[in-house]
């Protein structure tokens, strides 16, 4: 089997990040962790954008993933209580399942296990996206963007008023173990860093594989001309649905990892400005490669943290100007610079 360039690059980046991690200063690993988490979300958006759909509400899944990870026990309890109120045995049983699952896993791994939190985030975001996908797959352009915006603002509206989940303040969480192995301070930080690096790179690798499959390539055809794709006998809606769920799950994983890294979550994750930032990074990076989102996120976070450090009142301006320059002079995003360099060489 011949390895493609991207796979090799992903492998190299993974090894470099893992080996260099312990030697880097704390601020740099923190920057890397945040960029990688954001990168996973943007990677998800990129999968969706290949079909020509841009979501202005991806904060929905970013936030949902974080809350699902952080409040999986609360959510399972609420669902079970909800089910107990029902008179139908089937409903009672179905709504009790998550609690049984959470109890069983917590019994085996201990509470707030990183692996459990991630799996829960994947299940919750995947299911939500699968259901909403039936609606959203019929939309395109600005209407797709607006309907997804509405969904994300609905979640925001619910979270800011739910006192059990801390309303606008959100709440703190602390991961305690990874797949059953107890972790504290130093070892916890390292484990979180390694998890984020591995999950991000595996996600990039898998998306890269998917984009090379028949279904993966269809997305670009859909962006160019939906009617022709239908005439060819392929299903536009199914492809969009699959890409949508995939992109939501990636956003959920990014949100869960961000929650685990920062240790705090709040409803702002679902506000439109968060969704805007994600689209912003995607356009900044370009959709040229599965690694572009991570580079874009790293640049975005670097500008944000440095500009914030030295000039707290102009960091947004710096980002806005960068964005305008990219749109005006580099319509393919920053990643297109690599292509230009290669051509020049």
């Amino acid at each position: 089997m011949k390895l493609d360039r991207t796979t090799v690059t992903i492998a190299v980046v993974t090894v470099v990040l893992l080996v260099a991690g312990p030697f880097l200063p704390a601020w740099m690993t923190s920057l890397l962790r945040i960029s990688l988490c954001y990168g996973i979300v943007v990677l998800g958006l990129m999968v969706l954008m290949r079909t020509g759909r841009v979501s202005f509400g991806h904060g929905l899944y970013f936030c949902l993933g974080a809350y699902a990870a952080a409040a999986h026990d609360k959510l399972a309890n609420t669902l079970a209580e909800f089910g107990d109120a029902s008179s139908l045995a089937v409903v009672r049983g179905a709504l009790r399942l998550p609690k049984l699952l959470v109890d069983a896993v917590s019994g085996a791994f201990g509470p707030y296990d990183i692996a459990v939190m991630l799996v829960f985030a994947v299940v919750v975001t995947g299911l939500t996206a699968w259901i909403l996908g039936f609606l959203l797959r019929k939309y395109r352009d600005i209407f797709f963007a607006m309907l997804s915006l509405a969904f994300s603002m609905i979640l925001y509206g619910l979270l800011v008023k739910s006192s059990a989940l801390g309303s606008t303040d959100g709440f703190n969480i602390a991961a305690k173990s990874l797949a059953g192995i107890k972790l504290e301070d130093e070892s916890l930080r390292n484990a979180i860093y390694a998890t984020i690096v591995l999950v991000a790179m595996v996600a990039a690798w898998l998306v890269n594989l998917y984009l090379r499959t028949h279904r993966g390539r269809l997305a670009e055809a859909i962006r160019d001309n939906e009617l022709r794709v239908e005439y060819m006998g392929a299903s536009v809606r199914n492809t969009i649905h699959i890409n949508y769920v995939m992109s939501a799950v990636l956003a959920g994983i990014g949100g869960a990892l961000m929650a685990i890294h920062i240790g705090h979550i709040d409803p702002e994750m679902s506000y439109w400005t968060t969704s805007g930032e994600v689209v912003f990074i995607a356009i900044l990076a370009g959709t040229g490669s599965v690694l572009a989102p991570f580079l874009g996120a790293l640049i975005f976070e670097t500008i944000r943290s440095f500009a914030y450090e030295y000039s707290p009142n102009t960091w947004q301006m710096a980002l806005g100007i960068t964005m305008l320059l990219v749109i005006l002079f580099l319509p393919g995003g920053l990643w297109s610079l690599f292509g230009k360099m290669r051509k020049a060489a």
Partner: protein
Amino acid sequence: MGQFLAVVIDGLIYSSWLFIIAVGLTLIYGVMKILNIAHGSLYALGAFTSVTFTSAWFAHGYPVMGSYAMLALAAVVVGLVAGPVIERGLLRFLYGKDEVVLVLVTYALFLILEDLIKLVWGVDPLFVQGPKGETPYALLGNFTIGGLTYPTYNLLLVGVAVITAIVLTWVLARTRAGKLLVAVIHDRETAAAMGVDVGKTYFVTFTLGAMLAAVGGALTAPTVSVVTGMGAEVIVIAFAVVVIGGLGSLPGAALGALIVGLVRAASIHYRPELELFAVYFVMAVVLIVRPKGLFSAAEVRKI
């Protein structure tokens, strides 16, 4: 019954405010196909500028009554300065790009303007207030309806909204310039081919839209503390209004404003915990039932 009346009156007042802001947004989208996120910043600019103008007015010891003129002046100045600068200096280089890219451009603009406001006015809350604490908001006194008392200033808001709606409808339906605008809304290419100066239409529309956003801000400034970030809240709810009504539709903006205003007022009175949820839930339901909003023109199918 009393509560129902309160819902209706609160809803109408809130709807008027929403309409003034949303109508500029929908006009710009209709003509230019730009969903302008920076509309929120223009609203904020209107509010901050009116603080500056009224403070200067009060500082000279002029009568408080004149502060209303200052509010209006602030809106006009913001519209006439920011509108042309943004349209001529930035947007005209980007016409013809993808709609989503244009949204992003206005998002970048929003970020830039937010910081510009912080640089000029600082980050502390500001108030439209005279030296003895008199404000244009309280000056008009109160009125009572069905046992409920409201500041009369709110009537001003309703009046401005109604006048805006009437004038705009008249201009679009009866004047030459308005008819040309409608032609551009329906089909830009054909209008251009028929000799309509599309560039000029864009320029005028954006300036007018910016001015309407600033009017919204200027009228809001006396009723709240003027803080940075006020534009971000407004723009997303204005989106809900125009999307419910149908992007680019004037009656749509009015209906959307009424729906959002009444829904919000009702949920505040009956189920306050659902306030934000209710608005966006309605937005999602409308989009699901009528994907292009309530007042959408049938579109020519393009292949």
